[in-house]
């Protein structure tokens, strides 16, 4: 696969056709899943099939634009398969689209505070628990939107799969120091996003395309 990517990036038209053919189902399925999971945020009257097609094309353009700088970030030795890497790019694209689209859940819902995140106490009623869950959902989407595929992979290993340091090192090929650095970056990002969603935005937000996290 790495060889196919290399040839496609070098301008081999056959390799590019082959790569697009291989990745199209991966991109489509990830776009469809993500869109479906958040379809309540899709503006009324939008046809999901059409959005899947348009967003899938956008994902490919993101991968190949500006000298394919996003695709060139993929490194097989980091343990993330190309399909997974591209899937994460697709998921991020959909989340970004939903956030900047006609319906903007963040503008509608900016009352998220640190205190509210603490609300999952035994005394909390069903409404409070639902609201806390909703806020966490939004924060998770923002985190996914902000992170690079490598950042997402580290979040997955550290906090979703809850692996030990040694296991993360083995899975990612990163040094212990690098894993610690990523844990710290993830903490900082979560804190920053939490503050932004609380209305305490601080300095202007940079994006992944600006070379962040």
């Amino acid at each position, binding site marked *: 696969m790495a060889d196919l990517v290399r040839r496609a990036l070098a*301008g081999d*038209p056959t390799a*590019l*056709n082959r790569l*697009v*053919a291989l990745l*199209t*189902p991966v991109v*489509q*399925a990830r776009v*469809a*899943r993500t*869109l*479906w*999971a958040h379809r309540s945020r899709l503006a009324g009257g939008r046809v*999901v*099939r*059409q959005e*899947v*097609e*348009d967003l*899938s*094309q*956008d994902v*490919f*353009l993101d991968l*190949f*634009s*500006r*000298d394919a700088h996003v695709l060139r970030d993929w490194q097989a030795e980091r343990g993330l398969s190309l399909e997974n890497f591209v899937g994460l790019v697709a998921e991020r694209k959909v989340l970004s689209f939903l956030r900047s689209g006609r319906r903007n859940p963040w503008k509608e819902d900016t009352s998220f505070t*640190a205190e509210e*995140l*603490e609300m999952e106490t035994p005394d909390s009623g069903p409404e409070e628990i639902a609201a806390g*869950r909703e806020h*966490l*959902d939004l*924060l*998770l989407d923002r*985190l996914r939107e902000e992170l690079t595929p490598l950042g997402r992979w580290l*979040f*997955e290993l*550290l*906090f*979703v799969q*809850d692996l030990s340091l040694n296991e993360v090192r083995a899975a990612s090929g990163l040094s212990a120091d690098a894993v610690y650095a990523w844990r710290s970056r*993830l*903490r*900082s990002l*979560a*804190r920053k996003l*939490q503050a932004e969603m609380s209305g305490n935005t601080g300095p202007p937000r940079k994006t992944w395309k600006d070379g962040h996290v």
Partner: protein
Amino acid sequence: MNEDRLLGELGDLARQEGEAGKARFDERWDRLAAGTLTAEEEAELKALADSSPEMREAYEAFRPLGADFQARVVSAINAERTADAPQPAPPEPRPLPFPSVFRRIEVWVGGAAAVAAGAAVVFFLYRPALPLSSGYEASLDGGFKTDRGGETAPSDTPRVFGPGSLFTLNVSPKQPLKDPGEVRTSVYLSSNAGREDLSPLRPEPHFRIAETGSVSLEATMGKEIRIPPGDWILWTVVARPGRIPKASEVQTHLRAKRYQHGSWHAVCAALRAEDNPQPALWQVACTPDFRVEDQPAR
């Protein structure tokens, strides 16, 4: 909240979402997108699709995008690459011919100077075109706006042009160009509500080009500019000399990043709302919708 605890909760949530997603759409749906379902699995998913409008929509979302889609993607990637590609280096200067009556030493000394001068001239002539550092926006004036009972028409009401109407088009960089240099123009026409191919406007109208890189057109409908009756959008391409794209290239570029299936009105609205695009050797701007009637302006 402790950030590790927060990240832990986010991780738990991501895990739960992943499990729910797999329960909702198992691996068969991935194989549907890949076109590798067995006949039995395909029948199962079709039965599910027939069970509710929601599942029908899901089936449509995962139904393979197909070879046409892949061809469009490859074409859009190639168009993007062309736009991103560094400009070719100036060609090697060819040795200049010298009269044979020159003595060898004169040729040697004079020739060196001439080659240097020639190289400078060639370099000047073939200086790589600099990209236009800003996107462009178009505004339209002239004609009239339809009104109701003498009331002022809303600002988004399309302008209407008839034979003899003054048609004023201004196309300016959204941000001052870093290197205005020389630019050329080309104009394409599309309907408002359709999705047809862009057509070059003929006869090609003559634009005034300002030193800032802005271009403008003042024309009389039916004379310098001829557009049949209907609801239209004009697409003005501003490009470096020799870099005017073909209509198909403009179309691919416009559709690549915006509503691929939308009307030209939707594509234009998305283009107009867009932040400044990346520097490129050509930029495109669209007018608001306008109408041409076959009756003289009221």
